[in-house]
C-alpha cells in the first residue's frame, strides 16, 4: 500500500557506483518500468571517479579503461534506458515492507518499492579499527581519502609517505604519490603475502622500486602536530611485533590500506542477515538477501578485486530484482546451503534454490599453488573440480555452476584440495 505523500517505484537501487549502475540498467532492461537509482554524491560513478589509473574493463569491455571512463559508459547507458536518478540524496532508513526514507535538498521523501537492490559499496578500515598506538598528528589518511584529495581535488597530502597495508588502493596510491614527487619510503604488510593483486604489486611497486616489507607493520605513530615518523616492526606468525626488530621510519604522511568493510549499516538496521566472514548479506543464487524483495550486489555484498566482476554480479542482481518486481513467481523449493570448507574463507551465494545456473564466488584463506577447488554434495561426490596454478586470497575465484548438477543435492561444500 502506498501512503499519502509517498512515491512508488518498481525497483529502487541504493548506491550509484558500478554495482548500482549495472543493477539499475539490467532491472530496466529486464522489464521493470520504474527504476530509481539513489546516489548520495552529486554525481554517479562512485569510487570509480577517483580511480584515474587504467585497467578497468578488461573482462567486460575487453579493453583497458580508466575508472571514470568505465563509469561513464554505464552512466550513459543508464540514461539511454531511462533509469531515474536522484543525486545528493541519502537513504536514511529502510523498512522491511520495502519502504525507504530519503533525505535530499528537495526534502524528505518516502519511497515504496517492489524490490530494492543494495549497492552501497564498502568503506576503508581505519586507524581506530586496527588500534594504532601513538600520537594523533595530522598526515594520516586512508588510501582512498588520499586518492580522492589528490585525483579529484588537486590537493597534495605530503612529501614523504609510508603505506601501511598492501591493499590495492594502497598500491595504486604508492605509484600515484611517487609520480607526483612524494617519496614513498615503503609499504608495510602485516601478512607474509601481499593483500593486493599480483598485477598491482608488479605495476605499482616493483616497477617503481618501492620496497614491500612483508610480515612487517607500523606499531606506533610519532609527532605532536604533523606526523614526523612511524615505528615499524617485524611480526611473528600471530601477527605480534617481534621485540628488537623495531625501527623508526621518518615520514610526514601515513596512508592506511588495511582492508575494506562492506557498508551494511542500513542493511543491518533493516534486519538483513549478514555473513560475519564476507561482511555482506547472506544471499541466494538470485542475490536476494534474507529479506524478501531486498537484493544485494557489488562491494556491499563482498569486497571484489575487479570492477568487471562487480558489474557482472550487479547485472544479475538487477535482473532478479526486476523479475520479482514485475510479479514473476519462482517455484518454492528448499534452499541448498553452500558452506566453505577446508582452505576457503567464504563463498557466495550462501544458499541456492537449484532452480538456475549460478556463479560461485569465493576467496581462499592463504596463497597456495597447484591446487584444486572442489564442490561436493552431501555424499562427498565432486560436482565441480577445477585446478588452479595459483590461488591467492587477493584474487576472487569465480566458478559457474550448472543447475542440472543440483538435482538431488541437499548441501554443497567448497574446499581447496590436492
Amino acid at each position: 500500500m502506498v501512503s499519502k505523500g509517498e512515491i512508488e517505484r518498481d525497483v529502487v537501487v541504493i548506491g550509484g557506483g558500478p554495482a548500482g549502475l549495472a543493477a539499475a540498467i539490467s532491472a530496466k532492461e529486464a522489464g521493470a518500468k520504474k527504476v530509481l537509482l539513489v546516489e548520495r554524491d552529486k554525481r554517479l560513478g562512485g569510487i570509480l571517479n577517483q580511480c584515474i589509473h587504467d585497467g578497468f574493463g578488461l573482462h567486460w569491455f575487453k579493453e583497458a579503461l580508466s575508472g571514470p571512463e568505465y563509469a561513464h559508459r554505464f552512466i550513459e547507458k543508464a540514461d539511454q534506458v531511462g533509469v531515474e536518478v536522484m543525486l545528493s540524496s541519502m537513504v536514511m532508513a529502510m523498512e522491511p515492507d520495502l519502504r525507504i526514507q530519503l533525505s535530499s535538498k528537495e526534502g524528505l521523501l518516502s519511497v515504496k518499492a517492489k524490490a530494492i537492490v543494495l549497492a552501497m559499496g564498502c568503506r576503508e578500515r581505519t586507524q581506530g579499527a586496527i588500534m594504532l598506538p601513538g600520537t594523533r598528528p595530522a598526515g594520516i589518511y586512508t588510501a582512498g581519502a588520499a586518492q580522492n584529495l589528490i585525483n579529484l581535488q588537486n590537493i597534495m597530502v605530503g612529501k614523504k609517505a609510508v603505506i601501511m597495508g598492501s591493499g590495492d588502493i594502497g598500491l595504486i596510491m604508492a605509484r600515484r604519490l611517487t609520480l607526483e614527487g612524494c617519496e614513498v619510503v615503503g609499504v608495510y604488510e602485516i601478512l607474509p603475502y601481499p593483500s593486493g593483486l599480483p598485477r598491482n604489486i608488479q605495476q605499482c611497486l616493483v616497477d617503481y622500486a618501492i620496497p614491500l616489507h612483508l610480515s612487517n607493520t607500523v606499531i606506533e605513530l610519532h609527532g605532536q602536530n604533523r606526523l614526523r615518523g612511524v615505528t615499524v616492526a617485524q611480526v611473528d606468525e600471530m601477527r605480534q611485533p617481534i621485540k628488537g626488530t623495531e625501527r623508526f621510519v621518518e615520514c610526514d604522511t601515513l596512508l592506511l590500506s588495511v582492508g575494506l568493510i562492506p557498508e551494511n549499516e542500513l542493511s543491518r538496521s533493516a534486519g538483513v542477515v549478514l555473513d560475519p566472514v564476507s561482511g555482506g548479506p547472506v544471499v541466494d543464487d538470485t542475490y536476494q538477501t534474507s529479506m524478501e524483495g531486498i537484493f544485494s550486489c557489488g562491494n556491499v555484498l563482498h569486497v571484489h578485486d575487479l570492477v568487471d566482476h562487480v558489474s557482472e554480479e550487479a547485472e544479475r542482481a538487477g535482473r532478479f530484482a526486476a523479475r520479482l518486481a514485475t510479479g514473476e513467481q519462482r517455484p518454492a523449493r528448499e534452499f541448498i546451503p553452500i558452506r566453505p570448507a577446508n582452505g576457503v574463507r567464504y563463498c557466495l551465494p550462501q544458499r541456492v534454490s537449484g532452480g538456475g545456473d549460478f556463479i560461485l564466488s569465493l576467496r581462499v584463506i592463504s596463497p597456495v599453488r597447484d591446487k584444486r577447488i572442489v564442490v561436493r554434495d552431501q555424499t562427498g561426490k565432486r560436482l565441480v573440480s577445477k585446478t588452479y596454478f595459483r590461488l591467492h586470497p587477493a584474487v576472487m575465484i569465480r566458478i559457474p555452476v550448472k543447475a542440472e548438477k543440483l538435482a538431488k543435492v541437499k548441501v554443497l561444500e567448497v574446499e581447496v584440495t590436492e
Partner: protein
Amino acid sequence: MTGNGQYDVVIVGAGVVGCAIARELSKYQLRILVVEKELDVGMGTSSRNSGVIHSGIHYAPGSLRARLNVQGNAMFERLCRALKVKMNYIGKLTVAQDDEEIETLYRLKEQGEANGVPGMEILPPHKMQAIQPGVQGKLALYTPSTGIVCPYTFTIRLAESAHINGVEFLLAAKVTGITVNKGLFHITTHKGHKISGRVLINSAGLYSDAICRMLGIDEYKIYPCRGEYLILDKRFGHYLNALVYPAPHHGKAGLGIHLTKTVDENILIGPSNEYVEEADDYRTTREIMGLLIEEGRRLLPGLATSDVIRSFSGLRAKQTPPQVGGFKDFVIERRRDYPNFINLVGIESPGLTSSPAIAVMVRDLVAEVLFLNEKPGFKEELPGLLGYFHEQPQELKRELISQDKDYGEVICRCEGITKKEVMDAFQNPLGVRTLAGLKYRARVMMGRCQGGFCLPRIVELLRREFGIKPQELLLHSEGSYLFTGNVR
C-alpha cells in the same frame, strides 16, 4: 583588537572550568578576557574524559570535591537546556565482586548520604540485571543522579554563551609571563600580547602550577596521569542502559576501567591510569589498548577490535605523585599574597561535574574584590537546535529543509550530519577554523569511517563556500597542517 588592553577579569585557560567561570561572570558588567594557548577551547582534559556527570559518592564529606560535585550535578540539567547541550541522567551501577568490595559499596553509600547524593540504592544481582542485563556481581550501588554529557560540546557551548554575552576569547596565545604592578596583573603571551587585568583567574588545568610559578607561588605541582580510552562503534550503544563501574580500590588514581555510554550512542572503554612526565603526552599504547579490549569483552562478548573506531587519551591534573596515588581535594582560593588572584589547582575528576558550581564559587570570590553589577540583557539561552538535525522530529526536519535546503544534504554519512550543520560549525562564534574544531562542533568525521568519506567532501565544501586554501587547513594545533599544497 582582542588581547591587548585592560580587563576587569583575565581567565587563563579555556577548559570547562575556565569557560564555566567566564559564562558565570558574563552575567555581570565586567570586561572579561579568556586566554588560551590552544587553537580552540576545551582541547585538554575537558575534551578527553568519560563525559560523566558524577553523583558525588566518592569524595570525603566536607571536601570541596564533595560539595561542588553534588551542587554541580544538580545544576547540569537546567544549564544544558539553556546551552542546547544533550545530557541524560542515565544512572550508574557500582558493582562489587567480593566481600571487601561490598564493604566499599556501603561505605560509598554512607558517604553519598553525607554528601547529599539523592536516590541511592543497594541492589541485589537480579535488580542490577534488571537495569543492565548481563552485569555480574554480588551487589551494586545504584546512583540514579549519575549522568552523561558530551564534555567538549558542553565546554564549547559555555564559551559561546560567554562570548555572546561579551566575553572576549584570545586563542592560540600561551601565557609566558605575569607581573603585578599598581594593583594590576600584567600578562604577556608568546605572541607578544600585553594584557592587564584587575583580577586574574588561574584555570590552566595541567599547567596551573606553571601559572602559579610565574607569580612566585611554588607550593603546587601537577602530576599528569594519563587515561587511555577506546571508542566503540554505535552499534553497541543500545547494550548499555546505565553506566557500570567496578568498585574502586584504595590508593588508585582513577575510578577503574569502565564502560561509558556517550550521549551520541558510542561506548567508551577506559580510562587506564598511568603517570606520565609531560603534560601533553597524549599517546596511546599497545599494552593499554589490549587491556581495554579485554575489559570491554567481559561485558560485550561480541566485541571485535574492528568495532573500535578510535582511541584517545586524556591527562588528569593530579596533585599527588605516583608514589602517593589517590586523590587530593581541589584548590580554589583567593590568595593572601595576591588578593586579586583566584587560583584553581588540581581540578581533576569530578571537574566537569563540578564546573557550574566552581563557577559560582569563583564568582563569589570575585565579588569579594570587584563590585558585581548585574548586566541587563544577559542572554541565558543559546540559539539553535538541541541535538543534531537527524535527531529532530520528522516534522521539524521537513520544516527546516524547506527553510534551508542545506539541511537536506548529508555530508557525514556515518553520523548523518548535514551541509547546513557543517557550514554553521565552521562559522562558529569563537572563530575556530581547525578541522578538529569542526569535528567537535558538528560531529563530522567522528563516526565509524573516521572521515574516510567525509573529509574530502568537507575540504571541498570549505574551499567552495569559504574560499579556504587547502594548505592553510590545520587539524588541531599550530603546525598540524593537513596538506602540503597542490598536486600540480
